[in-house]
């Protein structure tokens, strides 16, 4: 086997798992159609594919193998050619799959010329990735530049399209799409040439390879403030906080830029509301701003969660910290707290203050604030930050953690979906555990109503045990020395996956998926007796014998006595009192219009007051 083939195999092996993740995310809408998978396919196509293009060179910086690679007995151009061949094979196949997901499932009505424009946009970003990665000397740096690049394209697209919805459905003028395609292709070729030239002239200076991301960007902090962030000879606790804040420096710079951009958009009436993702504007420029700000405020928590620990792991300072006389628990807690605060500040608190400030200038402080969505947005930001932090604890380095940030929550989501589905299927055949409990012990069917209503109101509780376990696990992983393998990550994910499946299944089969309607079934059985005309007295067994009741309802009524009296005020209505075997008394009021009210009270010698312990249904 020639040396060239060996090197190309090495490239392919390094790209395999990221390629697999991007392709899987892109293909997801083809097999599982929901809003989450649609968003993932968009991320896969517009972000994942360019990142894939940045990885082959980024990995050399990340793994400090650049010198080794460049000293191989081959010309730099040959090495470049090998890397680009593998990269383009991976990128094109991934783009083909995720493009199919985007254009046929996520955006099925998009017009052909817009598809071409989107492909050109991704092609240009992909072709630029090697040059930008070489210029930034890191994957993350390259990715940040690609993001800026995509952002410009969004703004440009926003300016081209006068009205978004109509524009996406109508074709672009032939001259425009031809110009975009020709320009895009020329630009892509030029960027590739620039990349090759950059590699040919690259100087391996031998400085700290890991310093690039943490040292990039201008020094914008005034000296007085910078002095506060400088570590002191005493005060270990504050020094750890200072260090954490400094590790997030690139993140703060991005946040600053995003906030300026947000203020600008709000000032010139281009912002609809904050949280940004709540309303999608129709107009083109506002849509472009919506996309870019939305992307930033969604990615910022991820960045906040992974950057600090990811960079420490990459540089080796984290293992060294573990040998210092500071409790690892304290180190972990400070890191987590700062990450959560940074995510919250960048995506909730600071943007909120900015839009309130701009609103105050314009006369109405809260004109941009959408309070209805704020709570959900805060929860989303906190969960995303924590998920990113968990990935940083489990993975070895920033890039690996970033790659897992999309995959890990997706796995948990799938686990929850699968568990719930299994629970539903079981509940459909046997009834839920709650149904069995109520029917066996002849309890009030309204017992779990409040819990069921709560669980249906928000799905977050489905992840509470997973989050608790992830919190404990993150500390354990923080202390561990992670391996650079997908198997290790899967091992870390497995307990969370299992707990999510079990919890979702238990909740679903326990009481959430209950479709048992004992009052409805009783009422339907009583209706057949035409109870609006005379008083009826019968047992539960009598009623069950003459109607098609489900097994739990028959069981529930076993040993009960039922008294039915016509409603004097409403001719076709009636009232039924069911004395259950447990001693519980359930009342059923059926109105002439067909409406039913039900309540259950414990039978007692004292007569209960009207309305006491009553639940309407």
């Amino acid at each position, binding site marked *: 086997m020639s040396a060239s083939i060996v090197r190309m195999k090495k490239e392919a092996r390094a790209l395999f798992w990221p390629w697999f993740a991007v392709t899987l995310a892109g293909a997801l809408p083809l097999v599982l159609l929901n809003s989450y998978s649609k968003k993932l396919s968009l991320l896969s196509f517009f972000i994942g594919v360019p990142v894939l293009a940045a990885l082959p060179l980024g990995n050399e910086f990340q793994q400090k193998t650049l010198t080794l690679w460049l000293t191989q007995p081959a010309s730099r151009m040959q090495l470049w050619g090998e890397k680009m061949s593998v990269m383009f094979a991976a990128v094109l196949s991934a783009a083909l799959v995720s493009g199919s997901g985007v254009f046929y499932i996520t955006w099925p009505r998009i017009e052909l010329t817009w598809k071409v424009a989107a492909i050109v946009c991704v092609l240009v970003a992909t072709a630029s990735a090697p040059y930008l990665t070489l210029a930034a000397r890191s994957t993350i740096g390259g990715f940040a530049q690609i993001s800026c690049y995509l952002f410009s394209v969004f703004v440009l697209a926003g300016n081209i399209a006068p009205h978004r919805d109509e524009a996406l459905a109508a074709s672009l003028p032939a001259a425009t799409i031809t110009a975009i395609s020709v320009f895009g292709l020329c630009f892509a070729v030029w960027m590739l040439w620039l990349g090759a030239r950059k590699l040919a002239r690259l100087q391996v200076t031998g400085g700290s390879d890991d310093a690039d991301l943490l*040292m990039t960007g201008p020094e914008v902090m005034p000296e007085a403030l910078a002095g506060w962030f400088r570590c002191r000879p005493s005060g270990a606790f504050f020094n750890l906080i200072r260090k954490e804040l400094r590790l997030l420096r690139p993140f703060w710079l991005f946040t600053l830029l995003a906030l300026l951009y947000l203020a600008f958009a709000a000032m010139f009436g281009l912002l609809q509301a904050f949280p940004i993702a709540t309303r999608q504007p129709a107009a083109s420029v506002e849509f472009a701003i919506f996309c870019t700000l939305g992307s930033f405020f969604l990615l910022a928590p991820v960045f906040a969660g992974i950057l600090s620990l990811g960079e420490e792991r990459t540089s080796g300072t984290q293992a060294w910290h573990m*040998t210092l006389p500071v409790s690892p628990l304290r180190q972990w807690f400070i890191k987590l707290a700062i990450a959560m605060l940074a995510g919250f500040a960048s995506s909730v608190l600071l943007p909120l203050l900015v839009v309130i400030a701009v609103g105050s200038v314009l006369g109405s402080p809260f004109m941009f604030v959408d309070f209805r969505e704020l709570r959900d947005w805060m929860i989303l930001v906190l969960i995303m930050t924590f998920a990113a932090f968990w990935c940083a604890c489990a993975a070895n380095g920033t890039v690996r953690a970033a790659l897992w940030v999309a995959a890990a929550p997706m796995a948990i989501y799938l686990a929850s979906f699968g568990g719930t589905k299994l629970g539903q299927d079981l509940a459909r055949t046997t009834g839920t555990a709650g149904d069995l409990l109520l029917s066996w012990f002849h309890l009030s069917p309204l017992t779990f109503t409040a819990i069921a209503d709560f669980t249906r109101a928000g799905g977050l509780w489905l992840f509470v045990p997973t989050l608790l376990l992830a919190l404990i696990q993150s500390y354990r992983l923080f202390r561990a*020395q992670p391996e650079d393998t997908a198997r290790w990550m899967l091992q870390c994910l497995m307990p969370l996956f299992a707990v999510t499946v079990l919890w979702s299944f238990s909740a679903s089969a326990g009481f959430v998926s209950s479709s048992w309607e004992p009052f409805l079934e009783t009422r339907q059985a009583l209706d057949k007796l035409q109870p609006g005309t005379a008083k009826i007295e019968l047992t539960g067994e009598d009623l069950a014998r003459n109607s098609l009741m489900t097994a739990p309802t028959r069981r529930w009524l076993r040993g009960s006595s039922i008294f039915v009296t016509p409603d004097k005020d409403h001719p076709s209505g009636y009232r039924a009192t069911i004395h259950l075997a447990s001693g519980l008394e359930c009342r059923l009021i059926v109105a002439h219009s067909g409406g039913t009210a039900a309540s259950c009270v414990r039978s007692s010698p004292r007569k209960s007051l009207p309305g006491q312990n009553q639940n309407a249904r």
Partner: protein
Amino acid sequence: MNSPTPVIQIENLAYAYGKAEAIHDLSLRVQPGRCYGLFGRNGAGKTTTMKCLLNLLSPQRGQVRVFGLDPAKAEVGVKRRLAYVPDQVAFYPWMSVRETLDYLASFRERWNRKTEQELLDHFRLDPSKRTNALSKGQRTQLALLAAICPEPDLLVLDEPTSGLDPIVRREFVETVIGAYQDGNSGNRTILVSTHLITEFEGLIDEFTIIDQGHSVLALEADEARERFQKIRARFAPSPPELDFPTALRVRRNGRELELIANGAGPELMERLRQHNPEALSTEALTLEEIFVAALKS
């Protein structure tokens, strides 16, 4: 009289990375004030042993005690009394040398500013220079400096001299380490792992040679020098064809015969003397020669 609590006590330690066994049934004991060498080839298990001592890895079998404490249970208490220099030194790139030292000093109860200044001058390190601008050797110097200034009871050094130029390397061993131990003689202990044994020859009191996770040889340095001897005999005609089963190595070079003895020196000398050699001499092996002989045998 009871012997003092060992600074390090390892008993039947075992650790494996997946199926690859890194350490197997390793036992050693380091008394206070000693300089203990952990010698072995690359991948022998030296770093893994040190990581178990520092609670960076949890032993899969066996027991580890540092200052009589379990590092997993009394983690901070143990780390407060030791300093570690890893084989791969890393610092925060934005921090200057000064800030790095201040940062590390903040975690310590003691920090000798005088020693710090002396070593900064000695290594010619510019305190205002950022750590990302330091060379690999300078970074190692900074790590050594940061480990010595808190005056710990135990100094754990993992390949401390890699990346240092020969002059600094010699100065480091003779001046820095020597001065560190002289500071509180009898109480300051060093555990050093290295394969550059020659530099530590004069400092090592006791050592263990590890090979593929197994302890091959554990001895006091002086005892080792007594046991391992190089015997040279020159004969007028060619050396007699003799069999030396108790010798570790036998080499014939013209009229000369060279034997490496492991404890059987007097017996071998006596046998050689019976053949009337022209010259017969013996000399103690250096630790590096003992290391090579132990691994080759």
